[in-house]
């Protein structure tokens, strides 16, 4: 029961925690359809901001901006732009900056601030140019060229579009949509500039590209637009027959009136205008009327004003003046509404001609005023556009110069740092050399000192041998003679005492002596030593004695270690009341470590004074640069640690 409860708990926890916020960001990002799409996108942005997932902030902001653009939501665009700008400031991701400028540009475009829009397109273009994103650069140039056409700066548009082609043409198939639009815009601009042949050439290029458009719907729109545009170029060339065949070809498209009403209207309008130019006024009026009806049906106000203007012109030609006036007035109204200045001028011109007296004068006054203002505006616009372009180009040039300068400076700096580094290297090398030298000298001195110490130990050893020998030979010999004499003179008690003394002296002499030391391996010596003290109730165990290559250890050091071990075992046996002694041998790279621990009664190592044996031992170990220490606690045994250099050779 408990187990199942645990599992249930586990799985709920698991499922709760596995649903990370990141997943929900993707949920919001991927559910951007229908009514809640803006809400979801905003949620996605704020969530990714809270979690600091930068790529997602960027992604969500861009998506939000695009969606806002589609519904002409300027506030949404500003929101996205600001998010992207912050992202750029935080992470120096220029892509965000380019997008932010782009959003600013389309925002101004929606608000009809065309020069600001142009400026931001230009900025965006520069950013993407630095990022080497030729697709984006091409698209920005396209947008700029379209803006220029709108502002009647056809020459400017031409140059912009041609520049755009430079970026887009190399990657034809990938960027076919931008390429088609560029060709079309270029064609339009050239058409306005009255260069129908060149214009047509670009339209044909666009037609060539249109086949790469995989969407049937869009491809067909492209084709139909191009029929219209190419037809218009023939109209400009006054090659009406060709124009008519093209318009008719377009109009013959299967159920075009229902599927593509705009294209149908354009084509029909074009055809009608040809009829008008050919003098077939009634035919033209019929066509214009159908177009106007259609435009009314799809609520295409801009188109309606154009249709009204054309109808007014046709009725005037047909001498149906009242109808002409009516259409001219409607064209004027709708033209003003849609800021279609061309149309307004056209209608004012017709109205001036079709009215009399004061009314006519007023229309004419409006006409002249508008024309003048338009002229000035056009000039200033053109100038502004030119200025923007000029300044950016200047900036770019300056940037290039700055970059060059920077590079030179960097090179200079680099050279300086290199020189510095070389200097430091030399200095470091020198210091190292000096350090090395001193350390060599120091180690040599140390070595000499150590060797001297070892010699000292040897000398001491010889002295010991001398003492041992004289004890054995002279003292023991004398005692022996005395003993013989005493036993001969029947003083047996004294003889016995003397015998004890003799034994003691002999033992002392043996202890001091290191006879046979060189003939027996250190391990055997240690075994011998242990054997001297080993008893069933005083067990001595060694550990790790085989881990050390004793042959390579200096003899004086071995002797010292041996004596240290002996002294320690002796002390333990005498004082510790231990039953077990463990001797642990260890070797490090340069030292030998011996740890001797017993299970005896121990003593207070801080309070107890060291005996002469221990003092001698410590001194002996320290002479050869070793460390000797005893730790003990009452009832917790004693641990002796000896660490000496190896002095391998």
């Amino acid at each position, binding site marked *: 029961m408990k187990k199942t409860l645990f599992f249930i708990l586990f799985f709920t926890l698991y499922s709760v925690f596995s649903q990370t916020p990141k997943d929900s960001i993707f949920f919001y990002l991927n559910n951007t359809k229908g009514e809640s799409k803006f809400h979801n996108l905003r949620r996605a942005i704020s969530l990714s901001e809270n979690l600091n997932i930068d790529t997602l902030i960027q992604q969500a902001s861009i998506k939000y901006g695009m969606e806002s653009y589609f519904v002409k939501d300027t506030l949404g665009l500003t929101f996205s732009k600001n998010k992207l700008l912050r992202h750029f400031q935080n992470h120096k991701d220029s892509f965000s900056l380019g997008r932010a400028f782009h959003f600013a540009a389309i925002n101004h475009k929606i608000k009809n601030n065309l020069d600001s829009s142009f400026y931001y397109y230009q900025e965006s273009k520069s950013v993407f140019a630095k990022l080497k994103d030729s697709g984006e650069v091409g698209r920005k140039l396209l947008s700029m060229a379209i803006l220029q056409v709108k502002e009647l700066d056809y020459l400017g548009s031409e140059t912009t579009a041609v520049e755009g082609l430079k970026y887009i043409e190399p990657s034809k198939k990938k960027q076919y949509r931008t390429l088609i639009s560029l060709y079309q815009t270029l064609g339009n601009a050239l058409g306005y500039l009255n260069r129908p042949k060149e214009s047509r050439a670009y339209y044909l290029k666009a037609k060539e590209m249109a086949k790469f458009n995989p969407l049937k719907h869009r491809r067909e729109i492209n084709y139909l637009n191009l029929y219209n545009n190419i037809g218009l170029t023939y109209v400009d060339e006054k090659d009406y027959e060709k124009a008519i065949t093209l318009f008719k070809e377009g109009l013959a498209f299967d159920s075009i009136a229902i599927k593509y009403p705009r294209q149908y209207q354009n084509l029909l309008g074009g055809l009608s205008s040809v009829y008008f130019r050919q003098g077939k006024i009634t035919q033209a009026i019929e066509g214009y009327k159908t177009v106007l009806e259609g435009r009314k049906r799809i609520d295409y106000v801009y188109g309606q004003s154009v249709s009204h203007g054309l109808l007014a012109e046709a009725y005037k030609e047909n001498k149906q003046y009242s109808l002409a006036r009516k259409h001219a007035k409607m064209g004027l109204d709708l033209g003003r509404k849609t800021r279609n200045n061309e149309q307004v001028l056209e209608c004012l011109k017709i109205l001036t001609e079709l009215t009399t007296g004061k009314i006519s004068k007023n229309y004419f006054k409006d006409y002249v005023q508008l024309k003048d203002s338009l002229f000035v505006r056009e000039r200033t616009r053109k100038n502004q556009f030119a200025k923007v372009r000029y300044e950016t180009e200047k900036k770019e040039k300056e940037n290039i110069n700055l970059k060059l300068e920077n590079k030179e400076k960097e090179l200079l700096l680099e050279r300086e740092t290199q020189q510095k580094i070389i200097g430091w290297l030399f200095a470091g090398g020198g210091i190292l050399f000096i350090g090395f030298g001193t350390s060599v000298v120091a180690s040599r001195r140390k070595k000499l000192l150590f060797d001297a110490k070892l010699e000292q130990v040897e000398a001491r050893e010889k002295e010991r041998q001398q003492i041992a020998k004289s004890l054995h030979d002279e003292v023991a010999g004398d005692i022996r003679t005395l003993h013989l004499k005493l036993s001969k003179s029947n003083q047996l008690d004294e003889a016995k005492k003397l015998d004890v003394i003799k034994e003691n002296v002999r033992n002392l002499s043996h202890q001091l002596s290191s006879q046979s030391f060189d003939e*027996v391996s250190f391990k055997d010596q240690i075994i011998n030593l242990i054997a001297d003290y080993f008893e069933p109730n005083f067990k001595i165990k060694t550990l790790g004695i085989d881990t050390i290559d004793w042959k390579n250890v200096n003899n004086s050091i071995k002797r010292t270690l041996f004596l240290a071990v002996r002294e320690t075992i002796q002390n333990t046996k005498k004082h510790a009341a231990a039953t077990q002694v463990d001797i642990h041998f260890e070797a490090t790279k340069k030292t030998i470590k011996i740890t001797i621990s017993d299970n005896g009664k121990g003593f207070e190592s801080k309070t107890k004074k060291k005996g002469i044996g221990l003092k001698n031992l410590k001194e002996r170990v320290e002479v050869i640069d070793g460390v000797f220490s005893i730790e003990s606690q009452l009832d917790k045994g004693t641990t002796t640690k000896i660490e000496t250099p190896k002095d391998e050779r």
Partner: protein
Amino acid sequence: MNDKLRILVVDDHQLVVQGILSSLNEVGTFDIVTANTCDKAFELVKNNSKTNPFQILFTDLSFDNTASDAILDRGESLIKAINTANYNIKIGVITGHTETNRVYNVIHNLNPSAYLLKTKCDATEIGFAISKMMANDHYYTHEIHQKITRRKIVQIQMDEVALQILKELPKHAKISNLEGIIQKNDGSTLKLRSIETKLANLRLDLNAKNNMDLILKAKELGVID
């Protein structure tokens, strides 16, 4: 050739030589020659080796009277020289040295037939030693024998493999069962042959008649619990 044993006694102290001689005379009649230095002793052994060789040499270990130009300065050197020259002579050590290192060195490296201590060197001791030596056996006086045995016990105690074998042996009916159980320091297991060799050495070391005896002796001596 006479049938008396020819014995060479070497010691730097005339008193000791006298003592040994009197003990020998108690044991039996021998053809005895004495020397005071190792060089002299070696010369005697060498010169008589073809014509009238010594059967037994008794020598001390330390000599105080060695001249600075002496070739052989210690009993050890003398024994070593004789061993190297491969003379057919039994060597016995009569000395006062009981330091384990020296004893071990002499017995282990020079392998004399006898090791006696001056303090206990009476007629019984020396007679027993001579009979053992002539029977191609060894005789170490009690104190030395004990020392050597103790040393062997210590050595066994330090030998993890030997301890394992001694502990495991009573648990198994056959020695072959031990194969795969006994491990070396590096974790590999010991082959049956190696186990048997080790057991033979242990029996020798502890002077045991068979494996059962070996276990009993090991327990008695405190090698295993």
